[in-house]
């Protein structure tokens, strides 16, 4: 039992259950204790450590440690802590508890040794994160939260169906690599995981919901859902070739939309799709270097993406808007936020000395080493788009462009700066000392990021992209638009769907009900008096109708006896 309570995911979920009993004042501080406890467990449990139990006759491995789960465990626990610091000023119990459950779900998935445990934590993540969207309490967030929840119930359902099918065919519940066979069980599980990894065209929940979540909620969201799915892909589907092309396509799709979008948090949301594309592509390549690259990139990505969401969240907090049209010219009013944001932006763009450089290059080079130069060039193209949209377009139109902006800027709570500072420090630290990250990777690392070739490559690309941006920046000027995506099919189709599946069905049931009632009315009118049918002497003209009912019965009985006798005799 004690062992069960020391599972990192369970620690955070226990914390979420304890929070409501604590006074409001100490809740934000208590929040931070649980990720630290989880981090302690993550660091102290050796390879091969496991916690087992049984449920409805199945032996469950609720926690299993190896190098792959450890590195994801470390970053999830750290992010839960940093995001907790960022949300320190926020007093809402619902958001605090759900954020802890959400982080606990991600940690639970990371350490799950069997598929049943995994799917339980998986569903916990979906439900708790929905709260972080609804907590914004706007009409848009209500709708987006519902679409998000439905999408994830569908994805979780597919995963669970795949797991049951897998159990029925193989008899195994272990979380392990599955052979590259397109059996029903494997395909169901893969699609279920791909929903959470936001693989196109199943990505729309992300771009729809993340910009509409609460300021602090989106920091949590940027870290857990997609990256826990990346973990499961690394664990179960390494080397599945289809992932290479879906990954590369995601990387490009995300950046194109990031250039199109005009809402700073929407740009970042689409950028998650793009960055996860790098990881998915690496997983598809499946060599040790590529899996290392995908894992390292997930680690770096969580750090800089949460930093970016914290930076844009700070802008939203201070100005009340995330629409680029209303922003611009904020440099004088929010210089520190700009500086901290830029650390994240330079990291995500893979600029030397920042942590994106040490992981993105590894993934891209892994594609090259595996002989897949097309995928490599697609990823390089996507990194141009990353630098262009998140590194240049977003900060330019938020902090510069206009010379003055008379928008009212609220003061930021100190804890927001501290959280951004911690994340920025980590981004630079890992950029300067890549081996501190490389030692935790699942396979041995034979990769040196700081070679002259890499530096020349990245600096040339970045400089000339910058020049391109400067010349063409007017083409990306902010406007008030919404960019349609494939969610159009279910958002615009909603009225038609409602007509066919709700309204028409309702009308059909109405008609049937009316028919049944009409039949009932007719029958009750006809059979109001059973005697009218059972007694042959009811006609008024008939003298026998004047007899008493008792006589009726006797006479009827005699007649019936004659009838039966006649039938028996003559037949």
């Amino acid at each position, binding site marked *: 039992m004690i062992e069960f309570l020391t599972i990192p995911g369970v620690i955070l979920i226990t914390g979420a259950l304890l929070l409501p009993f604590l006074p409001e004042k100490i809740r934000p501080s208590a929040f931070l204790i649980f990720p630290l406890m989880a981090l302690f467990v993550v660091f102290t449990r050796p390879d091969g450590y496991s916690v087992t139990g049984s449920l409805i006759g199945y032996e469950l491995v609720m926690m299993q440690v190896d190098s792959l789960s450890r590195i994801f465990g470390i970053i999830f626990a750290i992010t839960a802590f940093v995001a907790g610091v960022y949300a320190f000023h926020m007093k809402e119990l619902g958001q605090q508890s759900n954020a802890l459950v959400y982080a606990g779900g991600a940690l639970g998935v990371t350490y799950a040794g069997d598929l049943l445990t995994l799917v339980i934590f998986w569903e916990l993540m979906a439900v708790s994160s929905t709260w972080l969207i609804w907590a914004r309490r706007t009409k848009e967030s209500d709708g987006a939260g519902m679409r998000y929840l439905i999408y994830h119930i569908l994805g979780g359902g597919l995963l669970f169906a795949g797991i049951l099918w897998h159990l029925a065919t193989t008899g195994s519940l272990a979380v392990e690599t599955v052979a590259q066979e397109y059996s029903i069980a494997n395909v169901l599980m893969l699609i279920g995981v791909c929903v959470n990894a936001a693989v196109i065209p199943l990505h729309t929940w992300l771009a729809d919901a993340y910009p509409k979540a609460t300021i602090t909620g989106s920091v949590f969201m940027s870290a857990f859902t997609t990256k826990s799915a990346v973990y499961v892909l690394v664990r179960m589907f390494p080397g599945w070739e289809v992932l290479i092309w879906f990954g590369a396509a995601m990387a490009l799709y995300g950046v194109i939309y990031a250039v199109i979008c005009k809402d700073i948090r929407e740009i970042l949301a689409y950028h998650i799709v793009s960055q996860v594309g790098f990881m998915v592509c690496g997983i598809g390549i499946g060599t040790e270097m590529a899996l290392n690259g995908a894992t390292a990139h997930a680690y770096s990505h969580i750090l800089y993406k949460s930093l970016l969401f914290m930076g844009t969240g700070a802008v939203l907090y201070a100005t009340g808007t995330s629409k680029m049209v209303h922003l611009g010219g904020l440099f004088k009013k929010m210089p520190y936020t700009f500086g901290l944001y830029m650390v994240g932006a330079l990291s995500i763009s893979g600029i030397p000395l920042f942590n994106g450089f040490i992981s993105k290059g590894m993934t891209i080079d892994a594609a*090259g080493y595996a002989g897949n130069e097309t995928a490599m060039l697609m990823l*390089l193209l996507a990194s141009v788009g990353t630098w262009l949209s998140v590194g240049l377009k977003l900060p330019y139109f938020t902090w510069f462009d206009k010379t003055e902006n008379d928008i009212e800027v609220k003061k930021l709570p100190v804890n927001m700066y501290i959280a951004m500072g911690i994340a920025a420090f980590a981004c630079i630290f890992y950029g300067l000392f890549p081996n501190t990250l490389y030692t935790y990777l699942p396979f041995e690392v034979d990769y040196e990021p700081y070679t002259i070739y890499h530096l020349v490559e990245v600096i040339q*690309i970045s400089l*000339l*992209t910058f020049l391109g941006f400067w010349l063409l920046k007017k083409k990306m000027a902010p406007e008030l638009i919404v960019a349609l995506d494939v969610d159009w099919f279910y958002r615009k189709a909603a009225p038609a769907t409602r007509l066919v599946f709700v309204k028409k069905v309702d009308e059909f049931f109405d008609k049937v009900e009316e028919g049944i009632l009409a039949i009932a009315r007719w029958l009750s009118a006809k059979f109001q008096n059973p005697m009218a049918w059972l007694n042959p002497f009811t006609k008024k003209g008939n003298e026998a109708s004047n007899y008493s009912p008792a006589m009726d019965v006797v006479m009827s009985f005699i007649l019936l006896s004659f009838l039966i006798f006649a039938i028996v005799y003559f037949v």
Partner: protein
Amino acid sequence: MKKIHWIILGVLFVITLGFEFTVLADYDSHWWNAIPAFYAIFGFVCCAAIVYVAKFIAKNIVNRDINYYD
């Protein structure tokens, strides 16, 4: 952007070119290593391509009024 910024970026670019033609002169792991300043050209062309493709898609296919879904 002040003039000095452009000069710094220009000098940085020249330094990378210098390295490319000296230290990396014999480097050959991909077919594009034979093209001089490939990554610079790649960066500029791809940047322009992404901007124009995104603009084209935005204008002709996906952009709608902000209240489209209301």
